[in-house]
């Protein structure tokens, strides 16, 4: 059986050996050939010397989720040979550095072995040890390209783009590519039955990771103050903001920064700075992951109750505690939704693609300013740190930032009995003022203690209740402000619906096709935000059973749905994967078979 544009390649490397760029060169080349591709970096929580994998799925049909089963394994890491060989599908290929001979006990007769003396080749062709190391990676890309019929022009083009400015690096790289290709040409039949053929399937899409997209979105959204504390997998989000800002936010006259980024001493400080900056009228955000979210708990309660805008990007990883820092999960949902002690409800966003990371990150500042409350964007390691194919970014140049209900000097001058926490418009959203606006009007005392409509401290029961109930009204208002869900076919062709969000989307969309092919199509809806709006409620209302697909142990999104929409839990069936690896379509299809509705 031959398989064109439909297979999975996994690279097995040692981390800290510069394999990453070679591997993404490989993925990018397929993308350039117009063939849909998705790549997952499966790396250890360690800097150097441990096994790391890079998994590339090529899919003519455009499925970008993970797929179990390896068709081709390229391994240059003897540490993991045994495990690597074991996970190749029967009929698949194991391609390895044959400089050292493979132990016989590793051999399998149901798969094909292709040995390439990578080290030997590099030792022969390159002088300095660092080069030998680095180019080994390029050599195997060349070999693989030859085997899979990937265009060398494309590869060379990519290299010349990559080393724009350092042209002299291009030559040895191209040489390394050729070395790999030639070795295959001389010693093996090629291409294999697994191969890549050019297509025009990726259109104007782009290839980027969600963190870079979100960082860029923050630049476009007008963020000018960023405070953060390093933590995987959110670090690259802030780095991306800084990188783009350095390019796009420099004051032409002075060359100074129209932004500032501060690495804080911890996450409590990071969120505190972001809150202080937003309080003072700048757009500010911070980014973190699980442990940081836990540490931000107290401050999130303050921002909720004192009604201070702030944006937080939580790039989720596997918890609890330090957990698996380099594995993905969607398990901070409850902690985020009800962050902090006392009665609180936080606004959450759930992007699924880099474009949504960009759009929602930009949008989050308008939401925060309008709603005067924290906006928590929940992405995850898979979306944040892996490159995904995505529709291109767009910006409407006529778009104005919505700074929300902020009174300027004249407005204050004319305002009668303004009060910081008065519900003037009956939408639960009060009017705020920025320090320094007016000499005698509009000053008030922001506090996390109980306060009346004029921000004055009060222990009066009725006052307290009034403010707390207005906050609920504001949360109602949020429903119509947050991004609406995406409705897939909604023909009620079936009594069953799928509900998903974030990165489960990739697997879920593929699963929908499989189910359709199997003759039982399902309706589906993708949640983009919390609080849930009417559409979500209706969708569940209109189906007898709804499968909620998520990547955590305790079905946290389902809890939110049940709790906030007053739905019978038995109506919402759990489909879960929480092993730290991105979910696959097969997992969903299989679990739908198993998890059968009980009568309510």
């Amino acid at each position, binding site marked *: 059986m031959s398989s064109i544009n439909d297979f999975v390649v996994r690279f097995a490397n040692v981390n800290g050996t510069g394999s990453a760029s070679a591997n993404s060169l490989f993925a990018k080349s397929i993308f350039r050939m117009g063939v849909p591709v998705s790549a997952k970096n499966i790396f250890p929580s360690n800097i150097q010397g441990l096994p790391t994998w890079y998994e590339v799925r090529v899919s003519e049909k455009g499925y970008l989720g993970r797929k179990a089963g390896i068709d081709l394994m390229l391994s240059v890491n003897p540490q993991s040979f045994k495990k690597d060989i074991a996970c190749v599908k029967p009929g698949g290929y194991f391609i390895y550095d044959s400089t050292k001979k493979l132990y016989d006990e590793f051999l399998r007769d149901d798969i094909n072995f292709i040995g390439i003396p990578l080290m030997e080749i590099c030792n022969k062709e390159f002088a300095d040890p660092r080069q030998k190391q680095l180019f080994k990676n390029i050599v195997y890309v060349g070999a693989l390209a030859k085997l899979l019929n990937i265009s060398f022009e494309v590869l060379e083009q990519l290299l010349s783009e990559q080393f724009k400015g350092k042209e002299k690096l291009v030559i040895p790289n191209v040489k390394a590519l050729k070395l790999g290709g030639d070795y295959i040409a001389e010693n093996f039949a090629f291409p294999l039955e697994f191969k890549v053929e050019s297509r025009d399937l990726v259109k104007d899409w782009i290839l980027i990771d969600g963190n870079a997209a979100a960082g860029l979105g923050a630049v476009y959204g007008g963020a000018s103050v960023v405070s953060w504390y390093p933590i995987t997998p959110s670090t690259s989000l802030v780095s991306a903001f800084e990188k783009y800002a350095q390019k796009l936010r420099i004051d032409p006259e002075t060359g100074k920064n129209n932004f*500032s980024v501060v690495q804080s001493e911890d996450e409590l400080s990071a969120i*505190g700075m972001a809150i202080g900056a937003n309080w003072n009228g*700048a757009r500010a955000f911070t980014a973190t992951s699980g442990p940081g979210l836990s540490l931000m708990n107290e401050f999130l309660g303050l921002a909720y109750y004192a009604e201070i805008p702030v944006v937080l990007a939580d790039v989720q990883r596997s918890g609890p505690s330090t957990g698996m820092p380099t594995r993905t999960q969607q398990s901070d949902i409850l902690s985020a939704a009800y962050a902090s002690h006392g009665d609180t409800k936080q606004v959450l966003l759930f992007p699924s693609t880099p474009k949504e990371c960009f759009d929602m990150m930009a949008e989050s500042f308008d939401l925060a300013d309008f709603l005067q409350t924290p906006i928590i964007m929940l992405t995850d390691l898979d979306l944040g740190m892996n490159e995904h194919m995505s529709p291109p970014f767009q910006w409407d140049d006529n778009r104005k930032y919505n700074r929300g209900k902020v009174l300027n000097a004249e407005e204050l001058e004319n305002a009668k009995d303004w009060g910081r926490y008065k519900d003037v418009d009956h939408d639960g959203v009060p009017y705020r003022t920025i320090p320094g606006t007016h*000499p005698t009007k509009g000053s008030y005392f922001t*506090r996390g203690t109980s306060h009346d409509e004029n921000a004055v401290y009060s222990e009066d029961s009725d006052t307290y209740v009034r403010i707390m109930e207005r906050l609920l009204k504001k949360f109602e208002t949020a429903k119509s402000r947050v991004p609406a869900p995406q409705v897939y076919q909604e023909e009620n062709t079936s009594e069953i619906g799928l509900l998903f969000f974030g990165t489960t989307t990739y697997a879920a969309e593929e699963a929908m096709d499989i189910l359709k092919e199997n003759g039982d199509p399902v309706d589906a809806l993708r949640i983009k935000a919390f609080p849930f709006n009417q559409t979500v409620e209706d969708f569940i209302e209109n189906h007898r059973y709804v499968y909620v697909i998520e990547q955590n142990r305790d079905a946290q999104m389902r809890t939110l749905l049940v709790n906030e929409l007053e739905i019978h839990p038995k109506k919402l069936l759990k489909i879960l994967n929480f092993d730290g690896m991105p979910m696959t379509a097969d997992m969903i299809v299989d679990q739908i078979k198993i998890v059968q509705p009980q009568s309510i």
Partner: protein
Amino acid sequence: MSYIKPIFQHPRTPINTLGYTRKDYEGSISTLCAGCGHDSISASIVDACFELAIQPHHVAKLSGIGCSSKTPAYFLNNSHGFNSVHGRMPSVATGANLANRDLVYLGVSGDGDSASIGFGQFAHVIRRNLNMTYIVMNNGCYGLTKGQDSATADHGSKSKTGIVNNFEGIDLCAIAIELGATYVAQSFSGDKGQLIPLIKAALSHSGFSFINVISPCVTFNNNAGSTKSYDYVREHNEALSSLDFVPIKEEITTSYDPEKVKLVEMHDGSFIKLNKLIQGWDPEDKISIVNALQTAKQKEEILTGLLYINNNSIELNDLLGTVDKPLNSLTEKELCPGNAVLEGINAGLR
């Protein structure tokens, strides 16, 4: 319940160069205990701001949690205030300052707020040389939670219930100096003559200004044996120098004997005039003050006055290379690169 009263009343209420009266710098009625040192400090803040003729609404006053952290409600009613969470005022102040570098940032905290739960933030706001004035109203205890020892309670100090503190007290001034604070002073809530000029100079300093003000808690820590009681502080108070603050406008005419008098020129052209009392100490020489503090500690003296100043420091916004214009005043024009640029970025990602 006590009121913040001006120290003395003129027949005609005086007006500062901006045309404001002292009243324009006052706050709400204090709910602190009658006689609480914190109220005197609030009064000194009012006087300092009035005399310096700061635009009240150009001040942002921030605090943590505690009796001391309540005080921003009791001064500068025309300034925005932010009573944050316990020990975290420094981070909120940092964010606020980054958002608008043009305002005057006045942080007020307590010894529990800054030396216990907030010690990390206290240290790091100093490291960043944030352009703010940071006042700790230091009573050696947790007033608002009814008087437990704080981390600044001195070793051997006796609590109201007679228990002796076995732990070393944290010397916030010594720590601030070690961490690179560029203006460090120590004073006593009861000594307005010294405190007011210190606050004025702090507000005029560019960079991080720290004032540790010993401020007795009359309800829980003013007993005999307490090293933070009015009596003890009066006895052990050792002024490094007497000082005046000389505003920008006033010319320094007469010449002084440099042996007895030292003039420190501030970043904004104003001066601190020090009548030096203590030998071998120079407020611009770090080693001299580090020594003075170590020796004083051994002699159980409390050094007060301006301890250390460095007028050549670079404050956070400049360290970061931020534009001079307040970031909170930037508009779409400066903030949003627009769609054309985005097209280019897309192109680079294909």
